[in-house]
């Protein structure tokens, strides 16, 4: 039996998972999916920011479109650190496709005119 805290929404359900991957304590189906993912292939969305090269002292926020494996978080951060963009940029604009070959792109999350 494993105990987990669901991170899908602010509710933060306490989940119990038995040896046969039966999940209890979840308020919604997303909790079950989270528990199984967390115990088999834990993943996280990364949110951070990158430089806007043509605007002084300006950063623009970015995120991974899909969550990436937890043990790759710092490797992905290193890749993101190499990125920069020129304004104007729009929400959803892709800055890097398939970062580190993962099923996740880096996209802009803030409009800069």
């Amino acid at each position, binding site marked *: 039996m494993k105990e987990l*805290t669901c991170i899908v*929404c*602010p509710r933060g359900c306490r989940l119990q998972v038995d040896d046969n991957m039966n999940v209890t304590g979840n308020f919604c189906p997303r909790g079950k999916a989270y528990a199984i993912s967390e115990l088999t292939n834990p993943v996280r969305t990364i949110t951070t920011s990158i430089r806007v090269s043509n605007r002084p002292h300006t950063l623009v926020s970015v995120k991974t479109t899909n969550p990436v494996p937890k043990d790759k978080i710092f490797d992905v951060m290193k890749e993101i650190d190499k990125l920069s963009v020129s304004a104007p940029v729009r929400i959803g604009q892709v800055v890097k496709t398939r970062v580190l070959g993962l099923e996740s792109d880096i996209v802009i*999350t803030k409009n800069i005119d």
Partner: protein
Amino acid sequence: MKQIDLVIIGSGAAGMAAAIEAKKNGINDLLILEKDERLGGILNQCIHNGFGLTEFKEELTGPEYLQRFVDQVIALGIPYKLNAQVTDLSKDKVVTYSSKEDGLVKLQAKAIIMATGCYERNAGAIMLPGDRPSGVITAGTAQRYLNINGLMVGKRVVILGSGDIGLIMARRLTLEGAKVLCVSEIMPYSNGLNRNIQQCLIDYDIPLYLSRTVSKVVGKDRLEKVVLSAVDENLQIIPNTEMEFECDTLILSVGLIPYVSLLNYIDCPISSTKGAVVNQYMETEIPGIFSCGNCLHVHDVVDFVSQEARLAGQSAALYLKNQINNNEDRIKIKAGNNISYVLPQFVLKNSVNDLTFKFRVRKPLKDQVVFIRSGETVLAKFVKSALIPSEMVMVNLSKDKLDEVKDEIVISSEDR
């Protein structure tokens, strides 16, 4: 003096939602005043995700969430002023603001919505013991430096307070290469959401020390060391329990306080939430002045700020159409057993809307029944498996039930 129907002070999550709703309810003569250089308020620096699950049924970052509202403000043609600091407010609803573009301007408003947000408690507010070197900074300021200005605040960090911003900053600083040594919380439980304890601390092996606080700050020019001590049940420091951490930065995440300076100018009554006393229309004790969002009470989820602000926007429209009668009999709303505060604090009878009561519990509770009572009469009850102080609770009451009420309503949480 220029006359205007509605002024909204602040363009964060609350201000924009309130303005949009007022406009949709037929108020065309309105203006948003924003002191910063962009719309959106604090969401601009909240680049993490987790916003919008209630509003949009998807997970958004702060800037993405605010953009959805900016888009509506623009689509609806709602006028706004940036870099416009409101400097004064009078009881008869004259709003004074100053901006580079317009100079000092006075506006005679018929209605006002306060959406000014909150501010952070700082080292002085908690009487932080010890030296005053550089490197002691509030979590929100650190967040702005890092996420807006791209400045790292330090390399070895201790965080005091386990509110959500402190937890988010623990992860953020770790991702950017800082070593976060620990988070210290004076209470025996965290004030942050469970999910943030998991994804911001446990994920990165950052220890959380409960019932422990800073007993000494050491540093001449720059912070050198922080000493943490255990506290007893009365939150008093227990001698000989010191833990020392060599660090260059101490981040304070020790509470948020509604920003109500403007309301203080006009002696608007303030409640125990440190925000205005309001009725079910989010209207303060000064008819025609409304309050919503974090300047009313500090929220944990922005989606509920937007929701509350829509009610304020809709109410301001009702007020401007003379559909709120402030002379109605009043019902007092009181926080009963286990409840730290309830909003609204009073209700006007013959309500236009059904009622939503918002409250927080004083301590973590399990297997509870929440009662809405008037005297001995139970107006409604709700079963709750678990309640925690960091989670605002909302319960609804049909307006028809007000007929059964004498002169007060008490909300309480009791063991099942």
